[in-house]
């Protein structure tokens, strides 16, 4: 029995293995599977004969047939996987594209925020940390708020320091002005709010001036602190902290010089240490040069009075600085006039990505 059965099984295995190996696609292998281990397949049919065998015979043929079934089943599965992989490979080979073709850039990467807006956001981040709120006021101002309340005497040469744009006179002959500085908002704030006051005022300002370094419209930042205790010492600290934070330098030497503004007393001008030895570039916090950067001072008693406050009780300081100039110094734009020309090449180059929102925790600039 042994001698006769085994060669036959071996023969069957060889045939089946050959069929499996030669199956060319999934249909063919399925046919082989049915023919071998399907209900009526060659192996299955032989398995059915086991029941009729004697115990001895079964002991020999059982394992032999089972072994055959396992090997055939495994071989079919392996062949199937092989064929499936080959089919996928063949399909993928037809699907190849040129991945070097350029795609459209994200609009979020092509859009830009104007440097003035960005710098105002930077300033806001710094000043908010020092407890300043952001205040605003109108561009068209009365003579009172722009000059008189700020202690500019009528006809005084100090008024001529500001080349003023006037609106056409109204029926009463009164003429409003385009504010020459953001300082009128000091008065408006004092009128509207009880001290303590800590505000910064970014905004558009106007002077009748147009040449290589002046534009008739520009941007200023005003700062104002009014309370009962704030002194020049606080002013110095605030300005120094502001400059360090804005220019993102760990340390910078500053020079405070006496100066004159009608609305502050004492009045100071501030120089900042810089290196101007490389053409077209200013580095702050290094070098031996000084650059005038802003004007400031203790709020003049007459200005406090105009704001409805008693100068023997309240005191404080104010400062003013050019936002456009700050942007130019930090980011290296050579020409102020280009700020207002809306040339997309300039905006792309000097503008900021919309997601580069300045924060103190992530650094003002990237």
């Amino acid at each position, binding site marked *: 029995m042994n001698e006769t059965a085994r060669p036959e099984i071996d023969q069957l295995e060889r045939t089946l293995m050959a069929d499996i190996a030669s199956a060319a696609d999934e249909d063919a292998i399925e046919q082989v599977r049915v023919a071998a281990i399907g209900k009526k397949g060659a192996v299955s049919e032989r398995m059915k004969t086991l029941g009729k065998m004697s115990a001895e015979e079964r002991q020999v043929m059982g394992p032999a047939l089972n072994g055959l079934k396992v090997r055939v089943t495994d071989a079919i599965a392996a062949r199937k996987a092989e064929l499936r992989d080959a089919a996928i490979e063949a399909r993928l080979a037809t699907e190849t594209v040129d991945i070097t*073709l350029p*795609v*459209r850039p994200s*609009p979020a990467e092509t*859009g830009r*925020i*104007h440097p003035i*807006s960005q710098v105002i*956001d930077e300033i*806001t981040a710094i000043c*908010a940390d020092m*407890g300043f*709120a952001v205040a605003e*006021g*109108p*561009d*068209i101002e009365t003579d009172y708020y722009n000059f008189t309340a700020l202690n500019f005497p009528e006809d*005084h*040469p*100090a008024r001529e*320091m500001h080349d003023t*744009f*006037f*609106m*056409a006179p109204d029926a009463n002959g009164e003429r409003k002005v*385009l504010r020459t500085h953001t300082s009128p908002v000091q008065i408006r704030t004092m009128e509207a709010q009880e001290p303590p006051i*800590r505000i910064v005022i970014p905004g558009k300002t*106007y002077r*009748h001036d147009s040449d290589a370094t002046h534009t*008739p*419209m520009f941007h200023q930042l005003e700062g104002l602190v009014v309370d009962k205790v704030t*002194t*020049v*010492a*606080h002013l*110095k*600290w605030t300005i*120094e*902290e502001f400059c360090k934070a804005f220019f993102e330098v760990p340390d910078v030497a500053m020079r*405070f*010089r*006496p*100066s*004159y503004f009608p609305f502050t*007393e*004492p*009045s100071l001008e501030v120089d900042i240490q810089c290196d101007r030895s490389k053409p077209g570039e200013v580095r702050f916090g290094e070098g031996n040069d000084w650059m005038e950067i802003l004007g400031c001072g*203790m709020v003049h*008693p007459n200005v406090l009075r105009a704001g409805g406050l008693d*100068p023997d009780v309240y*005191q404080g300081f104010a400062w003013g600085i050019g936002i456009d100039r700050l942007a130019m110094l930090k980011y290296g734009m050579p020409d102020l006039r280009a*700020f*207002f*020309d*809306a*040339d*997309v*090449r300039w905006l792309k180059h000097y503008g900021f990505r*919309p*997601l580069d929102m300045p924060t103190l925790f992530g650094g003002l600039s990237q």
Partner: protein
Amino acid sequence: MKFTLSWLKEHLDTDASLEEIVERLTMIGLEVEEVTNRADRLKPFKIAKVLEAEQHPNADRLRVLKVDTGQGEPVQIVCGAPNARAGLVGVLGKPGDHIPGLDITLSVGKIRDVESFGMMCSERELELSDEHDGIIDLPEDAPVGVNFAKWAGLDEPVIEIGLTPNRPDCTGVYGIARDLAAAGLGKLKERSHEQIRGNYPCPVSVSLDFGDTRPMCKAFGLRMVKGIKNGPSPKWLQDRLTAIGLRPINILVDITNYLTFDQGRPLHVFDADKVHGNLVVRRGRAGEGIDGLNGKSYELDDTVCVIADDNGIESLGGILGGEPSGCTEDTVNVLIESALWEEDDIAATGRKLGVNTDARYRFERGVDPDYMMPGLEYATRLVLDLCGGEPSETTQAGRVPDSSNIIDFPYSEIRRLSGVEVSQAEANLTLKSLGFWISGSGDTVKVAAPSWRPDIEGKADLVEEVVRILGLDRVPLTPLPRTGTVGQKVLTTGQIRRNRTRRALATRGFNEAVTWSFISKPQAELFGGGSAALELANPISPEMSDMRPSLLPGLLSAAQRNADRGFGDVALFEVGQVFQDDTPEGQKMVAAGVRRGTAKLQGASRHWSGSSTGVDVYDAKADAEAALAAIGAPVEKLQVHTDAPGTFHPGRSGCLKLGPKNALAVFGEIHPKTLADLDLEGPLVAFEIYLDALPQPKTKGGRSKGALNASHLMPVRRDFAFLVGKDVKAEVLLKAARGAEKTLIADVTLFDIYVGQGVPDDQKSVAIDVLLQPRQKTLTDEEIEAVAKKIIANVEKATGGTLRG
């Protein structure tokens, strides 16, 4: 304000170096703008003498000079100056020397076949003055071969300070010396001027005649000096004036200029023989005029203060003398004027007539009233010393006003305002050295400001004086104490919305522009502005005459400018203020954007993945809605109206409203007429968002977003296509579909619009995709069918259309 180091040292006894002086000037508020030394540029130039001057053989106007340079053989020079002559002592430039006034370097040249080994220089060529009528003509005894700059006294530093308008006392070198002495940089050489006794009464009287009107002159001092000999000033005086850029004229005139810069005291001198009768100081009259010493003529009126005699106007008081009575080298009898004018009138007159003089500069800032008569004495002394003559007594009209201002000064004020500790003794010393008087004792004293400091008004000014002189670097740095809580919001809703709008639009590919707040009148009118109240009285140019009623004119022009530069596909936006009237409330915050050419959201121009066509109204609508969504507007609730302004295409524009009246935004294609009016080329679409029109957000309790209510049941999609009239608005159809069964219909998307074959001419096919979201149990076919019927019925009823079979 310019002066030389030696001039300063005339009033200041100091060992300090130039660097120390410059540093200290800046640190006490007299900011040094520039220190120059003309000798640096004039180093090569030596004094030389013309030995021979012969006619050039080939040129009528040229001469050939033999010039003695002080060493070696004389050199040959070809010269065209009319005053070139034998015996002239002048200044020689040699080959290789740089001529500062011409910015050229000399070389040996041949002029009409004659060799020239240098040039004799004019004053302009050496930047000494504008004089260019001839070459420099020095006194005969000027030493030949010597360095010219050194000999001429030009070899010294000239210091220029930028004077703030509050410091008239430092418009004279003496005042600057006083400040430096107070700051510890030397000792002030106190001035004192003897009172000169006149031998006779001043033959010309002066009166102030302002009738019932406000006087424009406070006081007027006058004196005659007769029998003088005028002429060129001595060298020391000429040198001083030339060093600071003034041209010496004659002794009398030079003395007035000298006192102007030395003492900050402007004076005027009349040639007494040209003055007819007495002097009257009064208002000018319409029709009167004056020929000024500056060579210009002015028409006068009653806002101008004049000095007149029987002949007419002789001087614009405090600003400019008149030509007819001016002093010349022939003047024999001189009237010296020292007066006090109303500061505001001087400023107003100067501005009105457009005259800037050194006198106006000082008088409008405020000249020391107590120095009016001493200044007259000092001028007289100089006239007598330099010109001889016989002085009259002085005569005076008006009264020098009492300028004393006594301030109660608690020393604690220094610390209160500056935060620096200064002892009473130190404060006293500082104030006294500046000329302040202090009386009383204890913690509060009385302080009187000196007559030359009209800027001192109160306590704060005294604090400034003390801190300024002691040095601001003594003030410590004290941190501002923290206020409020950590992480306080510092922006208003409006400010936050502007920020979000900016960044939302920039993420859509827009570049942010900042354009002028003023535009041309035609542009303003086109966009609903141009009212008289918003017109500038003194615009920079007609293109910048009116406050803008809209951001669009600026942006549209900007887009066109870019197109003209070859960049036609641009998307620009601006967030800024527009003006409805001239009140604070009439200023509104607006965000606006324009897209031009093919600048669509996905990118501009052609691309292999799909080319962008011209921008259209839907691009603008998408931008407007995106920006509104970014600032929290309920975009899904907005109504779309068709009443956009007339600057937009009437059929391709819209208005987004919250409720029937509150317009939040307009959008659309620009009207072809607007394009033509503004000289623009399309395609151009635009939107404008009225940021202030969006209501403030409701203050809700708590920040919780509430529970997520996501159904676990599968949603079901159904498509419908309707045939509706061509004019039926999509909004109507969508609303009808959405409203058919609100609890089940989660979303309705319009995914196709078709006209053409199979659809009647007056109709269109609109296809929608309805998403049904069951919440309780899976929908049966019957239930889905029921909803579908409702949708069809609703849409057919609302649109008059039919389901497309």
